[in-house]
């Protein structure tokens, strides 16, 4: 059911499955929480991501072998129950326009969609957080509807403004801070998702659900959006 491997002198990685799937992500979120509760004193960090969880632990108090045993025992005890109702839903307002969506026009012409059709497809569904990384608070969201999937740019841009909403294949994400990146930019959120705002520490977690909501230019500005 799971496979534990060495990841470093004070780290192991648990493989929960081979294929990316929503049920697996929810399961990993549950097991991650469970391990925090049962072995919290030994654990320094847990990083869940798609099909795995990396755990770093305090090697001053527990050896590799002993820690692996404790993790196996804890996981054997954990009984996963599928969440009946998802309470953790994050809504992100997005101004979809070529003024801020650097790749929007190209995407619309390649996919032969009107702006409204595109917005409908991108914002009418719920996404799941599969991983957080790349940069702080950067949440990988999936799964993007096939009708609006585009591969990454061949040459990444050096500077993508904070708040930019991008698409790369079946994934979508918001760039919380200005950074380089190769995703297709289709809009921008006016809200600060960076960790400069301490509240954002708990905004996204792996397993959370996310929805985008289309807003007007006026609303974008009113919410503090900048060009």
């Amino acid at each position, binding site marked *: 059911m799971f496979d534990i491997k060495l990841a470093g002198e004070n780290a192991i990685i648990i493989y929960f499955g081979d294929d990316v799937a929503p049920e697996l992500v929810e399961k990993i979120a549950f097991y991650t929480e469970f391990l925090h509760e049962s072995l919290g004193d030994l654990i320094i960090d847990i990083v869940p991501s798609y099909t795995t*969880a990396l755990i770093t632990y305090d090697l001053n108090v527990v050896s590799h072998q002993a820690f692996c045993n404790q993790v196996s025992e804890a996981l054997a005890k954990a009984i996963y129950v599928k969440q009946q109702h998802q309470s953790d839903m994050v809504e992100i307002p997005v101004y979809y326009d070529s003024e801020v969506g650097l790749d929007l026009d190209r995407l619309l012409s390649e996919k032969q969609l009107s702006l409204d059709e595109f917005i409908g497809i991108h914002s009418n569904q719920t996404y799941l957080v599969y991983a957080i990384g790349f940069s702080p608070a950067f949440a990988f969201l999936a799964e993007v509807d096939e009708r609006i999937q585009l591969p990454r740019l061949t040459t990444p841009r050096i500077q993508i403004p904070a708040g930019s909403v991008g698409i790369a294949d079946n994934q979508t994400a918001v760039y919380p801070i200005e950074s380089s990146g190769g995703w297709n930019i289709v809009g921008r959120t006016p809200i600060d998702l960076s960790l400069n705002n301490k509240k954002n520490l708990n905004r996204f977690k792996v397993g959370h659900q996310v929805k985008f909501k289309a807003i007007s230019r006026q609303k974008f500005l009113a919410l503090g959006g900048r060009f």
Partner: protein
Amino acid sequence: MSFRVIKPGFFSTIQDRGRFGLAHHGLSQSGVADEHAYCWANYLLGNDADAAVMEITFGGCVLSALIDTGIAITGADLGFKINGKPQDHWQVLSVKQGDLLTWSAPKNGVRAYLAVQDGFQTKQYFNSRSANLREKVGSLIQVNDELLTRPSKPSDKGKTMPAWFKPDYTEALTLRLLPSYQYEQFSQQQRQLLFGQAYKIGKASDRTGCRLEGNAIKNTPATMISEGISYGSVEITTAGLPIILLKDAPTIGGYPKIGTVFSLDLAKLAQHQPGSDVRFELIDIETAQQLRREFNYFFEK
């Protein structure tokens, strides 16, 4: 109560042990590149083991002391002087208000550490004073910055590291590698290529990763579903060359990893210039943990 920055140097930051418990938000560990030199600096001053220090890379740095206090300089020999007079490393020194502290250029190693009594009291970000430029957490030290310190107490003047402990960073470097992550997925032949050659440290190396140049490993395993990266993981890129992921590295990544370098060897690596040779050899987990535990016990008492 501070040091004023007259010249920040090529690349100087405040660092401490690092940032923990927040990796699931994408915040990397950060912290000092050379844990050995860092631990000695705080140990000599009797500081807390996680006190913040200044990490000075390559030199070109001038500070003015606005306080009387005790300091320790460890790590690289960057030609450190007080008021133009050369000073010993790896021992406690006194500075007086108005003294000029200068680091010129690398003589042995590349990263010097300046520890002050009780540690620098600069701004904390997520429970750590470490700057991580990739994440835009904190920043490079700038001219005219005031690096805050605490009021000084009588110092442990003269406390020094035994001579036979002093590292020579010009010695050839062999990195001990734990067979972790996708090690098994690399063939015998591919592993032999890794262990059988001397790589050169590439110019594009920084606090995020050390890029090695050498004979490429062919037909490496394909990129994978992104997974958590631990400190010292050795990615083999599509081009077949290793990148050793360091303190400022992203928390997840999708290249296959052939192993993880033992942390105290990463401390030595932090003192080697681009162009120097490195080799790999295997270490087992029991030995690595034993060595690291001994190191921790020494400094945490």
